[in-house]
Structure formats: structure tokens, C-alpha cells
């Protein structure tokens, strides 16, 4: 079984200008959206309390609301269904109460007339912890991008490194923009998904870069557009297939993984698609925008080659004792 015609070279460069301008603008818009509206931070980052209940039968949400209102601790609490009609989530901003006071006990006492239920989860996060986590998250994202950039610069060329970072920023920005639009709450899992994406979506980019490097070494072709078109076309089935296998598992995670990791699986699902698209339409074509020169690169390789041969020669001369 094969997906793509294997001998055809698709003209990606012809359409890349359109795609680069369109999605980079979308990415920019996402960044604007991020600063203007911002993400909805879950209690992991903003602090607060979440209590999760599971009833034996359909949860009487109105009665729960009324009964909780009796205690001012729950003033302004958000009471919603969570995944199924039996499950209820109560969340509120307050994190007051010492170590020995228990919100779970309070909920149990207040809701004792609403039916049989089980307190499944109580999460209390203080504002200080939340702030620290947010800092750490940004730090981790920035550092992993920096790490990748250095790695790509060492293994390839600085132009490749810059293009790969632009691609990564583009992926992250669009993913975050989508999270804002779909009102997905920023939690630790979502952060993990974004960081995973940074590490994952670079993979396809690297497969393509690797092929460009190989093409540059083997052909006499000096037109960057052609080199990129050939490289992207030849790696197309690999790119799509590797993304497809990951897409499958992330999809099963989204469908079967349950409400608790929805944030994670949804973000991954989004990111895998965006990452695949950008590897093909942004990462390699962007080399042209950055003014990567095939000739210079070839000269550089030739020079390296020459130096190597020179060194070999010197060494062999030295070993033979002629120097």
C-alpha cells in the first residue's frame, strides 16, 4: 500500500509564500490574542480549589448549588457537570484554610441531603505555588526551544536553526491560540502537551532538513527552490506516515482517555496536525525567506572537504616522516 505517487515532485515552493504569510499571520494573531485575552489558567497555575464528586445516580445540580450556597466559602463557586451527568465539579478561587481544615469534609456535610456521592478528588493550590509553576513552565518551554535551536545549529546550519525555531514558535502560537478560542483551560497536563509538541513537531522538520542536507551533498542542482521541492516531496510519505501513527494514538487517548486528560489529548491532537503542516509548508520553505544560499553552503562543504583532505595529507606525510 502506498499513499503518494513516489516519482512526482510536488511544487511546494509555489504555494509556500501563500501559506507562510497566512499562517504566520494567524500565529501573530494568536500572540496578540494571548496578550489581549490571555489563557484561562486552571487552578494549577492560578491557585484555587477544585472538588470532584461522583453520585450514584444523576447528580441534582440545582440542589447542590442551593446547599453549597449556605456556606460563604463557596460563594461564587462554579458548579458544573464533569464528563458525565453523575459527576460534578465544584471550583472556586479561595484557598483559605490551614493544613488541618478540610474542604472535602465541608462539602460532605453541606451536601449530605443531595444523595449518595463519593468525593473523588480535592485539589487545593495556593496562589504562590501557581505563580511558581507558571514561571517554571515558561522557563521549560523557552529552554527546550533554545536547546533544540543549539542542536540544530550544530548539526545543520544556523539558518536551519532559525527556521526551525520560527516553525516551532508558529506551532506553539497557533496551538495556544486555538486553546484560547476553544476555551481550553491551561493546566499542568496542557503545558506538558505543549512541551511534548515542541520536542515532537521538530522531528518532521528534522527529517526534511536531513534530506535537504543529503540532496545538497549529492546533486549539482543550485536552485534552492528545486532542492526544497525534491526534499519535501521525497520525504512526504514518511512525514505523513509518522504523523499518522502518532495521530492515531493521540486520537484514542482523546476518545478513551477520559475527561481528566482531555486537556492533554486535545492539545496534542491540535499540535500534531499543526506540526505536520508546518514541517511541510513552513520549515523548509522558510529557508528561502532567510536567504539560505545553496552556493555558499556548497562552497563551505567543499572547503571543509578540502581541509579534511589537507589534514589527511599532512598526517600521512607526518607519519611517513617527511615533515
Amino acid at each position, binding site marked *: 500500500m*502506498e499513499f503518494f505517487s513516489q516519482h512526482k515532485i510536488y511544487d511546494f515552493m509555489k504555494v509556500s509564500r501563500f501559506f507562510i504569510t497566512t499562517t504566520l499571520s494567524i500565529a501573530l494573531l494568536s500572540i496578540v490574542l494571548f496578550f489581549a485575552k490571555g489563557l484561562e489558567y486552571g487552578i494549577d497555575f492560578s491557585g484555587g480549589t477544585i472538588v470532584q464528586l461522583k453520585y450514584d445516580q444523576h447528580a441534582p445540580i440545582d440542589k447542590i448549588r442551593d446547599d453549597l450556597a449556605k456556606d460563604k466559602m463557596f460563594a461564587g463557586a462554579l458548579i458544573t457537570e464533569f464528563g458525565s451527568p453523575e459527576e460534578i465539579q465544584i471550583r472556586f478561587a479561595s484557598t483559605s484554610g*490551614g*493544613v488541618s481544615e478540610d474542604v472535602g469534609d465541608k462539602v460532605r456535610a453541606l451536601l449530605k441531603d443531595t444523595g449518595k456521592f463519593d468525593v473523588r478528588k480535592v485539589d487545593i493550590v495556593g496562589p504562590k505555588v501557581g505563580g511558581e509553576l507558571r514561571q*517554571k513552565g515558561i522557563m521549560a518551554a523557552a529552554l527546550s526551544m533554545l536547546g533544540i535551536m543549539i542542536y540544530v545549529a550544530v548539526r545543520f546550519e544556523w539558518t536551519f536553526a532559525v527556521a526551525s525555531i520560527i516553525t516551532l514558535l508558529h506551532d506553539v502560537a497557533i496551538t495556544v491560540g486555538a486553546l484560547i478560542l476553544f476555551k481550553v483551560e491551561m493546566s499542568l497536563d496542557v503545558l506538558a502537551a505543549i512541551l*511534548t509538541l515542541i520536542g515532537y513537531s521538530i522531528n*518532521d522538520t528534522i527529517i526534511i532538513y536531513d534530506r535537504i542536507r543529503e540532496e545538497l551533498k549529492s546533486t549539482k542542482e543550485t536552485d534552492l527552490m528545486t532542492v526544497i521541492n525534491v526534499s519535501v516531496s521525497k520525504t512526504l510519505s514518511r512525514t505523513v506516515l509518522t504523523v499518522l501513527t502518532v495521530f*492515531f494514538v493521540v486520537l484514542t*487517548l482523546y476518545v478513551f482517555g*477520559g475527561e481528566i*486528560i482531555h486537556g492533554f489529548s486535545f492539545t496534542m491532537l491540535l499540535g500534531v496536525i499543526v506540526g505536520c503542516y508546518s514541517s511541510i509548508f513552513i520549515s523548509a520553505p522558510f529557508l528561502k525567506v532567510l536567504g539560505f544560499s545553496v552556493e555558499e553552503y556548497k562552497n563551505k562543504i567543499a572547503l571543509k572537504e578540502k581541509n579534511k583532505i589537507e589534514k589527511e595529507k599532512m598526517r600521512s606525510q607526518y607519519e611517513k616522516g617527511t615533515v
Partner: protein
Amino acid sequence: MNRGKFNYRLVIFLIAIIFGVGMSMPTFFQSEKGAKVSLGLDLQGGLHMLLGVQTEEAIKSKIKSIASSIKFFAQSGDIIIDDFRIDEELLSFTLLDKDEEKKIDEMLKTISGLQVNKEALRYTLSLSDKEKDVIREYALSQAVETIRNRLDQFGLSEPNVAKQGNDKILVELPGIKTADDEQRARELIAKAAHLQLMAVDEKRKDRTNTMSPMEAAQYGDVILPDARSEQVKHILKEIPVLDGSMLSDAKVAFSEMHQPVINFTLNSEGAKIFGDFTANNIGNRLAIVLDNKVYSDPVIRERIGGGSGQISGGFSVKEAHDVAIALRSGALLAPVTLLEKRSIGPSLGADSIQASLIALISGFVLVSGFMLFYYRIAGVVANIALIVNLFLLIAIMALFGATLTLPGMAGIVLTIGMAVDANVIINERIRELLRQGVPMGQAIEHGYENAMSAILDSNVTSIITSVLLYVYGTGPIKGFAISTAIGISVSMLTAILGTHGIYEFLMPRIEKSKNLSLWFGMKRSH
């Protein structure tokens, strides 16, 4: 391909299979023997708490205890000092008699880390920054130790108490099932168990209810509430006669009224101070203060030698028991506050395991089915590598004593998708060569060579992010970082080396066969 050559790849792969399957068995069957992957709190249920230690308080209480010893020294040496006060972290007093200067100076020298500032006979004392750091660090490790001791005595299985950063403690209590147990555990942890014996300010006791805390401070007094009723106040000398650091034991006993009480014993130094104080203050009252609440303030009838005392005050048996545990295991030098608490009921954990297992199995079926359908025998080879990868992942996690969390499960599911990536890359390279008419044997060899750099580069970048995720992540996220990092690393062994070994083993058949469709699922192009 050299036929008959030693197939080291296959041998390594077989060793990896034996290792992986063998070492992951204890985890699958949850047998007692051997290392196994333990389930995180989010999967088995339990209590997770992040506590902040107010280390500054430890410095303040150190200042107070220095004050106590200076006062005791002065009194026992008949040195008169005046205007003795504590202002946050500063201690000051005036010496009345210049002749005593030398004695006091000698004494102050014996206290480590003390900075003495003298203006005429006015002394201002503070602790050096280095000493403060030492105290802060000690307060943290002491808190960890104390909480650990208390939880051990409480009888919980495998409590985990660990330092986090400079001023935080992570407490994990797996297997706390009932709300009652949770409550007790939380109280035991938070109990400062700071015992102080303080003199009642008899001169000003009539004005207790009208005096503001500020005014009291001017006289060197504090106003503390009664343990039984918040409304009842007591006025006490701020500098305690002695504190719980001189405690050597605490036990639950019963009073004549069959009420539970706590008997405590002081060490020899404490006993001496206690004896001297009671001898000099007959007729006055001494308050027994626990965690800034006054439990009783008996009148001193006679000198109390032997250094033992009693805390009574309407405890329940359980409470008295827990207070005794807390006192025995030592007071917390610095109070702890709750920064984060996550409690997960066992039923939620079970549901999470179930959901992620379903995702794991269906993800596996989808990916392996796809590989089989798309690549035929090459797909089978990749799937074998994938299965071995999962076994090895579990085995290595077990060896490291890693904890499996819900995001960790997601990481394993993701590994399934990412581990076959290497095989897809290799297989596509092989197909490319086959299309150019290269014979199968050669195509396989060159396919592996050509694919290497791309696989290496992409895996290294994934590992870079995993490492950072581990360093900067917390709790469950660390679990995710661990499982993906191990999964990717292991896939280099299984998906590259292992599958290569299998092809080498199959090489005689491959070279005989011309059926590209059977081996690599592609159409013949010539």
C-alpha cells in the same frame, strides 16, 4: 551482507527481550518479589501535600530562646538587666552595673553566630546572616524529620516526606482511604507542638481584657487565648521560662477524673531551670502553653524538682495521643502552611487506570494494525520491536523505581506512536531504494544507513525536551517526562538495532524472494 556472520544485533535484541520480559513481570503480576513500577497517587488514590515552612519563624524563636538563656544567666548570677526587649529579630537590654560587663560578654561569646552591638551599657544583639541560613536550613530538615517521625508513629504505609527547594516539604500519603484518616494525618502534620512554660504577669493581670497586644508588648508581655475558650485571655511574660526543646518525653496518662492528660519530662538542663524558677516564684502562676494556647496556669506551691509536668485540658483520648506523638517527635521549629493539597479518591484512580489502559490497547491495535496493513512483513518486524519496546519501558521504569502517573500512562501511549516512527523512516528509505531497482538485501542495509542521521537527530531533540520537562515539571508531569524519555531511548535499541537483527536473520529468505509486496507492502514498479 556477509552470510554466516555473527548476528550480534539479534543477540543483543534477544537479550533485551529476556531482560524486558523478565524484569517487567513483577509489575504485571504485582508479585512481592522484584522491583516493580509503583502507581502514583493519581492512580491509586491518596493524599499529596506541598507545605511551606515559615523558616523566618524559626529565627524568631531562636532569638526568644537566646533571650530565655540570657535572662536565666542574669538571674542566677544576680546581674541586673533592664529594659529587656525583643523586636522582631533584634534583642536588646541595658546592663545596670558596669562591673558585670565582663561576665555578660563572656556569656554572650558562648552563643554561636551572635552579633553583639554595644553602646555604653546598651546591648543590641542579632544573629549573623550565616547563622540565619543555618537556622533556616535546620528548620527545614528538622521539619521533614519531625513530620516523617510523626507519620511513622501514626502507622501509615510508605509515607513519603521530602524537601522541595529551600522552604517547602512534599508529603505523599498513598492509600489514605477514609476522610477520618485524612483529617488525622493532616492535623498531625500541621501540629506545631510548640510547648512553652511562661510566667503569668501577676502585676498586670487585672488589665488583661482591656490591654491591646501593642501595649502588652511594651511591658514585655504577650496576651494569649485559653485553649478551652477563645474569649478567655491570659497575660504572660513574653520570654518563656523554657520551651519544648528541653523536652525529653511525653506520654498519655489519665487524671483522677479519668480525663486523658499528657505527662511530660524535661531533660536535665530543663529540669534545673524549671526547679530554680519554681523555687523563686512560689505563689505565682506558671502557664503551660501549647501552640500559643494556654492549657492551664497552676499556682506554684513549692519548688518542682525532677523536671516533669502535666498538660491537662479536655483532650479526647485520640487527641491526647496525637499531641503526645507530636511532642515526642519534637516541635516544629517553624510553622508549616499548606501551599497545595491534592487528594484523590481510590475510585477515581481506578477509573483513570481503566481509561488509560483502554487508550493504550486501542492505540496499540490501531498502530500495529496500520503497520501490518501498510508494510506487511516489515510491519510485523516493526510491531515485534514495538512490543519489546513496551516491555523494556516497564522493566526500566521498575528498575529505576519510577512511579507511574496518569500523564505517565499518556506518555506510554504516546511512545507507541513515536516508537514506530523510526521504522517508518527506515522502511520508507528501503522502499525508495527498492524503487530504484536496488536488490532487497542491499536496500535494507543502505536503508538503515541513510535513515540513521534523521532518526538520531529527531530522537535527540525529543530527549532534550523530556529532560527539561523532568527538570521543570512537578509530580505527575515528571512521570510523563520519564516514560517518554525512556520510551524514546529504548526505541533506538528495539526499532533500529532489533529490527535490523531480524532482517539479518531473515536475509537468506529475503534474498531468495522477489516478492516486494509481501516483504515491504509495495507495488512492483518494474
